[in-house]
């Protein structure tokens, strides 16, 4: 919670259990982390809410029948976009994505990758946690390989390959 205030936010791995309130609308979920800025007493700044949602959903190319659609009726990819939207509207400095493409179909995965590039373009630092090799190799500038809770290797953009990552992940064959 303190981290949220200092600009570091986490989009959790298991979006259905930890990221979204499925029975509520797209609007409800998108603004949930910035309610304090939108509501003063009993007055909701409707125009501002509207603007924030249209802006972010355009940026993320969110596909939904309306902003009053319940999140449970959206596709996996669009649900993930709502999770991203929820955090992007807080203007974070660092966004941690934990397995952002788990349970999403292939087309939507590409879309999420594109979005991650765009988010970085907006000036947000992204930490991507992933166990999918191609995802890591294609998206990351710098990779820390973690094995059993310990960082076993740091790879720059130019040494990135499945082989090197695997080497560190399996446990430093090179040292033997």
């Amino acid at each position, binding site marked *: 919670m303190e981290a949220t205030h200092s600009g570091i936010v986490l989009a959790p791995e298991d979006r259905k259990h930890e990221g979204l*309130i499925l*029975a509520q609308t797209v609007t409800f979920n998108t603004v949930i982390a910035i309610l304090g800025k939108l509501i003063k007493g009993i007055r909701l700044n409707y125009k501002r809410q509207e603007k924030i949602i249209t802006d972010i959903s355009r940026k993320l190319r969110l596909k939904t*029948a309306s902003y009053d659609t319940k999140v449970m009726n959206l596709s996996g990819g669009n649900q993930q976009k709502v999770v991203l939207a929820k955090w992007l509207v807080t203007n974070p400095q660092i966004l941690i994505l934990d397995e952002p493409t788990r349970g999403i179909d292939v087309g939507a995965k590409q879309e999420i990758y594109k979005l991650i590039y765009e988010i970085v373009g907006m000036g947000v630092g992204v930490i991507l946690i992933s166990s999918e090799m191609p995802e890591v190799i294609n998206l990351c500038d710098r990779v820390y390989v973690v094995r059993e809770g310990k960082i076993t290797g740091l790879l720059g953009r130019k040494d990135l390959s499945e082989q090197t990552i695997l080497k560190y992940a399996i446990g430093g064959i090179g040292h033997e």
Partner: protein
Amino acid sequence: MNRETAGDIRKSSPLIQYIKNNIGILIGLLLMCILISLVKPQFLATKNLLNIVRSVSITAILGFGMTLCIIIMGIDLSQGSVIGLCSCFCAWMITNVGAPFWLAVISALFIGALCGFLNGALLACFPLPPFVVTLASQLIARGFCYVITRGNMINVDASFGELGNGYLFQVIPLPVVYMLVLFVLMFLLLSKTVFGRNVYAIGGNPEAARFSGINIKKVTWLIYLISGTLAGICGVISCSRVTTGQPTAGNAMEFDAVAACYLGGISYMGGEGSIGSTLLGAIVLGTLANGMSMLQIPWYVQNITKGGIIMAAVFFDVMNKQKRKKI
């Protein structure tokens, strides 16, 4: 296209939305009224209708607090006993201490708030089941009723009765006025404030709410505090209604409140429901009781009917949920 549909939904006024959401129970209420009034035309007399709303008001006020608890998948079973405790305390303050009415009322409300505060403290700070905690505090509060009154009733000066038996403009019973004021306050609190949205968020998905930076502890605590305070208000009203502090006051009232919530269509799975539907649920319960009494149906048959209706309400709620899941 997308934006248009979004606009359409918003354009329909809150009242129409309310009717749409509660269409089933509204039709049921209407049918019930028509049936009863066909047999007993006196049912529709203004005096009788006012009687119904007056008897409904305490259930409704309790129900408002219970609504909050049920939305976050909790429950407050101590409400009925807190009514008794506050009623006894209020009477004790007036008769035994000789406190002025206003002080007695305020201190009784404070006792109610304190009960809620303690319930909330336990439930917010420890992962305890609300059912068990409030069941225990129900017993404790009921015990204190007898401690205060020493098992007898405490009679109060008759002029205190004005608070619960009086009328506004000589027409509207005062408890109904309190209920309406609290209705507006609670409605605004739940549907317009950050607190209200947080309540729905926690009920919908506590984990996600926590990850979104919502202070679950604070919200839970406040909910039980509100529930206790509302029960305190009911305690003062019921003390004034009969101008006695009775240790048995409010016995099993919390179940009427729960019934009103479920009848109104508040989901037992949490995260859904509104103050408006609870009010409607309380009205249906009150109308049912009044109508059956008018038709001279014995009270035990009334209980059977009430129980059956509550069961049916929850049954349809669950069936609806499953249908939606399949789609």
